[in-house]
């Protein structure tokens, strides 16, 4: 049995009550850190833990914190609670059921980079969660866990909640910053990177909710304990969001490096109606499609192994497709998602997703002909490597891999 770092509420009922959380050792790490630890030491511990960002890119968290220049102030920490990738629903569970552990992580990271104001950016659909967080933050202030001159030190911290209003791209960190600042959520040009000029043009750390929720565990139980899970290069556990054609969809916190097979057939209890599995999308709608070969099923899910299958682990939103699904239909759905969510800033993404969606729509409606499949591929290829941000690049993963690996599904639709 693997350790549980993140979904601890499943073992401790009522963990989303401050009372219960503190009764179970909550915020002790936080108080300890502020009272006795040097910010630089905390950063070093996080570096040593090998924790990598859970928001998608897998960037080493400690290294990210260390980038902030110490001659530009103030610093900000922004928690990315935009969770919008189709197939991802892990942050939501943390936010609803284990919120204080996440907040404690956010507070520790703020202390580590000496930020005095930190922001949580919720996707607009999380309006209820956002409201509860406003209450929780008030509660923390009342209890003296945050506020001015904490625990007799000179350190002050204030937390602020920001509610988005419906835009997937605001999960991209620079678009998120634009959105907080009251602008269209469109990605920024880089450089400058947020570490140097982020929120309000000041040095900013942006971390995913799940990433931050690891922090109290790392600090309280130590690097070795954390590293006891996962692989050397991808240490720790990860919440895998399992959805699609499985019997038991849901969040599963497992060590990084767990195989697809264990997730799908062990925890997910196999395919609906015991049908044949067809393909896996390990990173939501942004994934390349992995044909579900035996070898693929035996691949460990970590930041190194999944790329070998031509895909990315991303935020580990594992969508399962079985033999009842025509890949052209699937691709039509992902392409429509990206068309709907393209911010419109750059030409290839704005026009390309629009164009692709028309082609896939015609294909699924049986109004297309064979050359349209090549046209779809060609349009996607024309976008490849040319977009302003990753959204455009994500949008072509399913179409390109779909046509490459499951061309017959497309042909079946056009020949009808």
């Amino acid at each position: 049995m693997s350790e549980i770092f993140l979904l601890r509420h499943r073992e401790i009922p009522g963990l989303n009550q401050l009372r219960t959380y503190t009764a179970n050792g909550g915020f002790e790490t936080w108080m300890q850190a502020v009272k006795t630890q040097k910010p630089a030491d905390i950063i070093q511990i996080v570096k040593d833990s090998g924790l990598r960002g859970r928001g998608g890119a897998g960037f080493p968290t400690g290294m990210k914190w260390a980038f902030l220049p110490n001659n530009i102030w103030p610093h900000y920490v922004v928690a990315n609670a935009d969770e919008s990738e189709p197939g991802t629903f892990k942050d939501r569970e943390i936010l609803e059921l284990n919120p204080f552990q996440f907040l404690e992580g956010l507070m520790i990271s703020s202390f580590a980079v000496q930020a005095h104001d930190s922001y949580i950016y919720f996707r607009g659909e999380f309006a209820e969660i956002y409201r509860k967080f406003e209450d929780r933050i008030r509660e923390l202030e009342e209890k003296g866990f945050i506020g001015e001159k904490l625990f007799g030190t000179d350190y002050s911290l204030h937390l602020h909640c920001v509610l988005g209003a419906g835009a997937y791209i605001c999960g991209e960190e620079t678009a998120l910053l634009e959105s907080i600042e009251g602008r269209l959520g469109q990605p920024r040009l880089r450089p400058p990177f947020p570490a140097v000029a982020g929120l309000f043009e000041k040095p900013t750390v942006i971390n995913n909710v799940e990433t931050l929720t690891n922090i109290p565990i790392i600090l309280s139980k130590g690097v070795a304990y954390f590293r006891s899970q996962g692989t050397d290069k991808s240490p720790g556990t990860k919440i895998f969001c399992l959805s699609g054609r499985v019997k038991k969809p849901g969040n599963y916190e497992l060590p990084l490096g767990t195989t697809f097979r264990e997730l799908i057939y062990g925890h997910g209890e196999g395919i609906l109606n015991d049908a044949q599995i067809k393909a896996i999308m390990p990173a939501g709608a942004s994934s390349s499609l992995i044909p579900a070969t035996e070898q693929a099923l035996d691949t460990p899910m970590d930041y190194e192994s999944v790329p070998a299958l031509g895909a990315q682990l991303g935020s580990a939103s594992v969508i399962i497709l079985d033999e009842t699904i025509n890949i052209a239909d699937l691709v039509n759905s992902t392409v429509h998602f990206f068309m709907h969510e393209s911010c419109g800033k750059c030409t290839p993404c704005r026009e390309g997703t629009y164009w692709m969606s028309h082609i896939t729509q015609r294909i699924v409606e049986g109004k297309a002909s064979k050359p349209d499949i090549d046209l779809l591929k060609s349009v996607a290829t024309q976008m490849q490597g040319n977009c302003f941000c990753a959204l455009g690049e994500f949008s072509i993963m399913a179409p390109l891999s779909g046509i490459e690996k499951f061309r017959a599904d497309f042909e079946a639709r056009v020949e009808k």
Partner: protein
Amino acid sequence: MNSLEKKYPDEVASILARYPEDQKRAAIIPLLHLTQRDAGFISIHAMNDVAEITRQSITDVASIAGYYTLFHDHPEGKIRLQVCTDVACMLRGAQEYLAELSRGLGIQPGETTADGLVTLEEVKCVAACDHVPVFQSQIGDAIEFHENQTSQKTLDWLRSMSASIKGEGS
């Protein structure tokens, strides 16, 4: 003091307090949420109020209202019934669920019932892919998730909601 400040003095003040003095523009999105609380949409008048409070041009405010999908620039049904039909939901029968709702309500997605109570909409992934079918209700500035639905369950819920909304109205 404009009408938004008059109506929600505390909310406006607390929103403004969140941001540095020279960054009041950041208050636009929270204030737009606030303006949706009553009417369920953002009128030009409301945009003007927000522009005034944040000292931005009304065009900048309108631009933001137009960008985000949860902001609406015209009135629709009191309850926006937003069914997720995105990838993971599609794989588990969201389309059929939507079709049943559509039949049950007698409207197509994008339309509003004749009594002006319900607008049926399709939305992208709402982070509930393990409890399909799922819809989200947007009423004023409140958004709630409703998971593990059947069309019957949803229609029942709607009936009770409609009754209470009508009750309030009279």
